[in-house]
């Protein structure tokens, strides 16, 4: 028995290490994922776009303003005069949140030692609001101490200062399924057609049918587009059924029209398919293709921004989100299902997906022609 067992072990081991390309993938993939992950998320969160509403023109608010501008976490992209303007910017998803210094802030602190501030948060971004709250609280605590100290020096007696931060939520009643559900649907719409496409050409290569096809008048365009269309239909069918499940069965909200969701899904499916076809053209066997698809799945989870905010990634690494179709989908679908805007308002990421599809299709065709020899 041991002889037989060791024979099988020996054979498997030999076969595993013999195919250099596959072993390179098997070892390189986990290492690459961890490397990117480490490089991306080992720093602090930076560059969260916020609006700053300054209603108070007293001397103390300038202390807070400079502290907010010094924050590496916050990136103030709008300065407005009122709470309502700041809230509007958050609602329009121009910013991820807003800090409001209300009228009378300076006098309240000076007179009573008590002040309040508002943090407007967009609840449709997963994991981001809590990070914003933490940073806002840190700023307030620092600023309170500074103000208390300077007031004490001025007045010659100890003056406690207490600033209360009130969080105001836009889309605050959202459940996890509302935020994550549509994007998980996107993962399916991305992965399933991509894997189908990725296997399709490499399988024809392995089976020898590609050789036969290449001796016919069939063009690369016929082959690539001919494969793309049925797989895109599969992608849309997955989109429809997933949308039904996540909304009708599990109660996630969808404030957009189903048609808009489907167009967004189609755009994602096309981009994912073009990527899958590229994988198929460059891999030698189905195992390699499966490895690359798995890699893409992990990368999409970690680096498309829907679970871990992109703001948590180091700037130098952020370019990686642009090669992940799911990133664009996530940007668009949040607008449609949660904010309830029409597809025109999120046309930018959707057009990006179509452009993405076009680029990778052309690339697949170009690389395929090289492969014929």
């Amino acid at each position, binding site marked *: 028995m041991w002889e037989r067992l060791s024979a099988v072990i020996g054979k498997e081991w030999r076969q595993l290490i013999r195919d250099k390309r596959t072993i390179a993938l098997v070892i390189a993939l986990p290492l690459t994922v961890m490397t990117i992950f480490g490089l991306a998320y080992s720093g602090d969160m930076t560059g969260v776009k916020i609006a700053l509403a300054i209603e108070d023109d007293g001397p103390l608010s300038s202390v807070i303003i400079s502290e907010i501008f010094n924050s590496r976490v916050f990136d103030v992209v709008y300065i407005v005069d009122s709470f309502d303007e700041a809230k509007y910017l958050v609602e329009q998803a121009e910013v991820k949140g807003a800090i409001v210094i209300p009228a009378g802030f300076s006098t309240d602190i000076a007179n009573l030692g008590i002040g309040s501030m508002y943090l407007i948060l967009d609840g449709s971004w997963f994991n981001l609001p809590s990070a914003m709250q933490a940073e806002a609280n840190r700023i307030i605590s620092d600023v309170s101490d500074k103000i208390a100290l300077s007031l004490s020096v001025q007045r010659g007696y100890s003056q406690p200062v207490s600033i209360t931060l009130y969080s105001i939520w836009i889309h605050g009643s959202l459940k996890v399924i509302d935020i994550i559900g549509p994007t998980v649907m996107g993962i399916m719409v991305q992965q399933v057609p991509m894997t189908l496409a990725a296997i399709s050409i490499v399988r024809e290569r392995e089976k020898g*049918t590609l050789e036969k096809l290449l*001796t016919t*008048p069939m063009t690369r365009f016929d082959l690539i587009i001919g494969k793309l269309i049925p797989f895109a239909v599969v992608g849309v069918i997955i989109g429809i059924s997933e949308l039904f499940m996540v909304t009708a069965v599990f109660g996630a909200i969808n404030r957009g029209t189903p048609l808009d969701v489907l167009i967004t899904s189609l755009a994602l499916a096309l981009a994912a398919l073009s990527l899958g076809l590229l994988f198929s053209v460059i891999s030698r066997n189905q195992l390699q293709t499966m490895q690359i698809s798995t890699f893409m799945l992990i990368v999409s989870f970690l680096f498309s921004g829907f679970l871990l905010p992109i703001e948590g990634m180091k700037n130098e690494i952020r370019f990686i989100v642009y090669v992940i179709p799911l990133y664009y989908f996530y940007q668009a679908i949040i607008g449609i299902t949660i904010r309830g805007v029409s597809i025109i308002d999120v046309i930018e990421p959707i057009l990006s997906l179509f452009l993405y599809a076009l680029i990778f299709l052309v690339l697949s065709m170009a690389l395929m022609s090289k492969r*014929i*020899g």
Partner: protein
Amino acid sequence: MVELINLVKKFGNIVAVNGLNLEINKGEIFALLGPNGAGKTTTVRMIMGLLKPTRGKIFVDGIDISKNLSEAKKRIGYVPQFFSLYEDLTVLENLYFFGKIYDLPKNVINERIRELLEAVNLREHKDKLAGNLSGGLKRRLSFAVALLHDPKLLILDEPTAGIDPPLRRAFWKMFKALRNEGKTILVTTHYMDETEHADRIGLISRGQLVAIGTPTEIKRKVFDGDLIRIVFRGGKILTELNAPWLVRLLRRENTANGEQEVVLIVKELASVLPKIPIVLKKLGFEPILIEPVSVTLEDAFIALTSGGEINVGEIIRGYW
């Protein structure tokens, strides 16, 4: 129909095809014969445009394939070495698919499929999945697909490898029938015996053409003539023979009962055969047996590709 000019294909340091010059005429069955690894499949793949030659030119029906491959493809029906149709489609579905790929009109596709299913005897299997067919039936389906667009040239890469002799014979019968319809057929094979059926043979070894000609011409090339074995009695020992038709005396041996045996190489068997008894009698010998020695293509092949001396004894013993 096919012209290869100084064709070279290198894979890294390995030279698979090394300066091949070859012309295949319209309407002939041409067998490209050679051992495994001689460069047959590489050559065929270059003709099909699947591989790009390192050097050299390929013309198919007068078309330079490096300039107009798609036009050339329309004239060729190709049967690869291994089954390369869709196993998860039925026989009919495969045929329809390739008919459409060749841009044939629907009524033509239907007509051709009907004819071809009849011709290759696949009609009763038309609704089976190609993957469920036996090896022989798969080959027949591959032929049918290759013939769908009525190509002028049919290229078959090792079509008879691994199939039983009756089916092999049937295939060659089919090749002949197609040739008689005016098609040109290029077949690669490593079975010497079956190339007897070809009109011409190109013998290829290590990427080079070693010999080309009809089966008879190839065999004749080995000895520069035909072989005759003569057994006779009486007279002195025959060591020399002068005759204008003689190329040379290959071998002489004393056998039992005081008989002698010689093997002659003559220029052309048919005209020499009746003259031999006369010559022998003139010299005082009594002929017992006069017979042509049939050289098989296998003998010729080994002699031509090994480049060394042929072992005549070995050949003759086989037909003793």
